[in-house]
């Protein structure tokens, strides 16, 4: 019985995350459009997209791995989300965070990447691996400052358990990691730009450079699943950042907590969106070098600072 309830709660949690993620996507497109002096698509466009892609009557596939690619991807997104406790103290939104700590979440992010890489590779396009190669290289680069930030807060809170980290940030806004360990947050937020793959780090799927590949070869439900995943995965990352650096979402009333969550994640997301809208794209070697220089340095300083002061 317990497990059925748990699964039920998980479904609710996922649904909320999906809806919010898609909404965020819609907000972003509207924002981009307005910045470019266009009207832009309606806010519910992402929902319409998903309904549209799933309604296609025929799709093509190149084989088992191709078929499984989007599944891996979505599994990665869902899994990542499910291992993060979304709302502090809530049973419904606690997810499966007892299965593992921050390390599990960090590594599960790779699960989806790997799966998608395999699926795209199976597509047979020569440019897919090019994009994947760039994506993996970039990922390795931004992991460095991110891991330094994670180590820094692990030292600070003496725990890798996300729930404990959120608990330590309660009390007042000044308890947020943003204020108690600003260097770590800085390093992490710069990594976030890489994670979200917006400009200036959008070379991975740069449409002008890689005109063929997964977005074209995958159609129909495959594409729908990928788009759904985009929403969930984005939500997961944002919730993770919120928990680690911005005090988490904690309120005795679940609905108010949800609203706090939405506001905070919107803020974090707009951070990367606004930077993305304003900057052009880096070349591959520029983006790697960028991550390995200043953000890493900030990360190292934050670790040393926390460890020895």
């Amino acid at each position: 019985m317990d497990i059925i309830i748990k699964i039920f709660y998980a479904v609710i949690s996922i649904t909320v995350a999906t809806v919010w993620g898609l909404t965020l996507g819609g907000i972003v497109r509207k924002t981009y459009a307005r910045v470019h002096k266009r009207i832009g698509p309606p806010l519910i466009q992402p929902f319409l997209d998903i309904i549209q892609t799933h309604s296609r009557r025929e799709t093509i596939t190149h084989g088992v791995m191709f078929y499984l690619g989007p599944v891996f991807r979505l599994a990665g997104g869902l899994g990542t989300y499910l291992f993060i406790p979304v709302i502090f103290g809530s049973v419904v939104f606690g997810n499966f965070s007892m299965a593992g700590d921050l390390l599990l979440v960090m590594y599960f992010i790779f699960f989806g990447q790997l799966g998608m890489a395999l699926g795209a590779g199976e597509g047979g396009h020569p440019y897919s691996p090019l994009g994947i190669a760039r994506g993996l290289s970039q990922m390795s680069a931004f992991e460095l400052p991110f891991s330094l930030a994670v180590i820094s807060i692990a030292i600070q809170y003496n725990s890798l358990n996300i729930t404990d980290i959120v608990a330590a940030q309660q009390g007042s806004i000044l308890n947020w990691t943003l204020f108690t360990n600003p260097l770590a947050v800085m390093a992490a937020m710069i990594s976030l730009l890489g994670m979200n793959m917006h400009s200036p780090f959008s070379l991975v799927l740069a449409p002008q450079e890689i005109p063929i590949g997964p977005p074209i070869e995958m159609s129909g439900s495959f594409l729908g699943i990928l788009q759904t995943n985009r929403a969930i995965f984005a939500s997961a990352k944002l919730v993770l950042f919120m928990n680690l650096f911005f005090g988490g979402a904690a309120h005795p009333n679940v609905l108010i907590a949800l609203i706090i969550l939405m506001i905070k994640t919107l803020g974090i997301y707009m951070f990367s969106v606004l930077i993305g809208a304003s900057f052009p794209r880096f070349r591959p070697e520029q983006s790697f070098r960028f991550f390995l220089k200043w953000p890493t340095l900030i990360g190292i300083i934050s670790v040393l600072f926390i460890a020895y002061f």
Partner: protein
Amino acid sequence: MLSPLYILILGLAAGFLLSPIDKAGRKLSLTVFYFVLTFNTVVMAVRFIDFAFLGAAPLLIQTAGFQAPLSINLQLGLVESFVLLFSNLAALLAGILLFKKFKENSIATMILYLILVMSSNGLVMTRDLFNIFVFIEILSISTYALTFFNNKDKSLISGFKYLLAGGVSSMFLLLGVVFVYYYSGSLNIDFIKAENFSHYQTIALFLLAIGVFIELKPFPANGWALDVYESVNSGIGSVIAVVNSAAIFFAFYKIVPLLPHNMQNVFGIAGIVTFLFSNLLGLKQENAKRLLGYSSIGQMGLLVAALIFTQNSPTRLVYLIVGGFFLNHLIAKAGLFWISSIVKESNINRWFVMNKHKLLPLLFGIFIFALAGLPPFPGFWAKWEFVKILVQGKMYLTLSAVLLGSLFELVFLFRWFIKTLKTENTQPLPKIEFSKLIAPGLFGILAIVISNIIMRYFYSFNILYALPVLAVLFFFLIDFLPSKLKAIISMLSLAVYSYYLYPFESKIQLFFGIIFLAGSAVNLISTFNRKGKSKGFYGFLMMMIFSFGNLIIAQNYLEFFLSWEFMTIASFLLILRGRKAEKASLMYMMFSAAGAYLMMAGFALAPDISGQLPLILGMANVHLPLISIILLAIGFMIKSGSLGVHIWLPEAHAEAEADVSSFISAILLKAGVFGLLMIGISYIKSTPSFDVFYWIGWIGVFTALVGAFLASFQEDMKKLLAYSSMSQVGYIVASIAMVTHLGWVSALYLTFNHMLFKSALFVAIAGIYIRTNTRMMYKMGGLIKRMPLSFITVLISIIAVSGVPPVSGFGAKWLIYTSFIAKGWYLQAAVLFFASAVSFLYLYRLIHTIFLGQLKYEHQEVKEAPIWFIIPQYIFLAGIMAISAFPSLIIKPLNAIAVQYFDSSIIMEGYSIYSQLGHWNGGLVMLVTMGVFITPLVILLLLNGKTQKVKQFNIVYAAERPESPQTTHIAHNMYAHYRKALGAWGVPRIWNFWHGASEWAHSLANNIRQIYTGNGQTYLLHIILYIVVIYIGSGV
């Protein structure tokens, strides 16, 4: 029994009478000739057995009816009979080898030969100084004459130089004899009271000693000797190297007790200098006989040093060391000269003409390995004990010189060996007559027999430690059987061996037993695929596997080191079997040997282990000095391919045969890990002042990072996996270096995991190589359609390597990061995170370039990997899945091991593991992952309607048509942009460093050997100057 005096009498008589006897027919004189030689040998053999086993007293023979010192007396004791037995045996065998030459040349050659042998006997036995001089003269004269044996101009010239040099040295010798007689009043060694010599009078002793010493050909006053070795007939060369040198060495041995202490030391140092520089100069030498000359001179130098520096040690040890070196040199050097006379090629690069012969390469190998000081041959034991004595005497500079010289020797010997064995041979030797093979063959057998005697009687080893050698011999005997039968025999013997070993005393031994033995057993399955007979393969393979096992149960340093060396030899020979493995195997041997020498020194510096505990347990009570820890750690880290000494690793893995690479990567590297754990166990109780392990930790961490990067840039799939191994073992090394509970649990977990997934990967890759016949990944692609089983293996294995949950790799990563952060090694943890992220690059590259993308034309019909490769892969996969689903299956036992050394830092409840920082529930992760995977899959299946499967090549291509599968697969230089981004960090500095060091050594050798101008007068000048230098150095 016949008095040894008869040897001299018979020799002289035969010498005089051979000329008239020859008139009656060559056959008769040959009979007499060989009879005398045999007689000498038999007499000495009987006497030696008397002295050695029946406890007879030394024999003192008076001559001329008077007692000494009025007359000359001869002494024949244990040592004399030992030297003379082997010296006469060598002379006899050389005589047999030269049978044809003796038959055809004038009778003078036989006479001279007999005189030479007789005088060497006399030189060893006599106790009278002047007699020594006379015998040296007789020996020299007969040798000079014999240098003209092959009637070439070069021999005449070198013989003449020999004459000149010998003349000078005898002059000094005679002067010394005269003055010693003058000051002491006696010519008999036993009656000279050298302690009573005043300061001036010791000059006489100096002259005496240097007169003999020059004859031993010290560096740099030995140019004449090298020219002689280069130009004489090989049989005579062997006699000079072995019989002459033995006799003169013994003469020196008799004189040494007369010399004052500091003079002795100077000669010892001179010996070491000779050893070091002869071997250095040998590096550039390409003429086979001259090279053997360098080696002989070097060995004599080592012998002199061994003689002088072991004077205060127990007799038993002195016999082993000096006797061991002596015998080693005698057998190996004579053997090699004899082979040289069979092969008849003057350039070492042309010796490959022998490699199709059935017996010669084997004999050649035995002699080379013996000369290199590898077990089981006598030189190994001698060197081990000698190193211990040098360390006890705190003679560190000498020790370094000995080890460095040995390393140089190893370089040229193995270069020769490898070139001989591996070069394509289109002109095999004509049939060799049996008489020529007797001599080297007998000596080959003798080498093995003596090694066995030393092992059993001197050290009283358990038969287990000889098992590697017995395995090689056994498989050599059954080499004619088909490969599959030998594979079955191997499996059975491994099973029996494991069963015999099984009651291990501790869990950690059981753990490594499983890794070494069970891992080898599963890998053995893949060798069933071999066709034909695979000659030599199973012998070496079992030698390696048995040495792995012996490492675990070794109870003292020597047993451990012995097994370690056997392991190195076996793996070297296995790697050598690869098609283009010359450079790789040489590099492997060099680095392993250097590591082994460091380990030898490290063990010698460590306090003695007594007791019956296996070493891995006994180390807990040993306090290792800092220098010992550093030396041993470097030695072990070389074996694990740590950063800075890793350049052998990719070459060895790549060039070894397909099924061998898996053994090397998955199991051999773990031997280094085992060693580091041993040091770690000692480290726990007795941490030295300087925290070595902290720096080892950093090295491990950077090894992980650099290995991951290097792997990403490889085109060759085996090199990619090799660098991946380097990276993963870097993680293990860093974890051990933490010396904490969680650190060791993670290290052991990763060791086990690595064995599983790296074996699976290498076996899969081997299967792919067998089918596609290429190692370059960009030549493949799209193989998922044709080789789905291999694909699944590689897929799950790379997920395991990367650490993505829910497969077992994540457990390793969780343990490692938690342990690093808990220990406080924050920056190291960050570097590991980075390395982990970079590892995705090469893992993806591996699976994508081979399996995904477009299938090339030539692979349209490729079959799945052979069944014998599929089976072990899936066994390993099953292991991976088992510990992924049930992590506590492995973590509980590992925890039980680690708590023997530390307090536990984790709590295990059911499926969850709690550390001070976080938690992980392996079972739940697996369930959730399966849930989130199956759910979308089901949704997709339901929603997807009709899917149409299209051909791989049917892709949307932005308004063009793709040209062909060959050009539609991005694989070559896949991470070019990353390489560009790394910029100056991408330069192969370490590779350049080691190659530079090698080049530097060779240049130095080349420059120094310019002193050998070929001009006899220059050589005389060298001799005189040398005498002056030694004189000044001896402080007289």
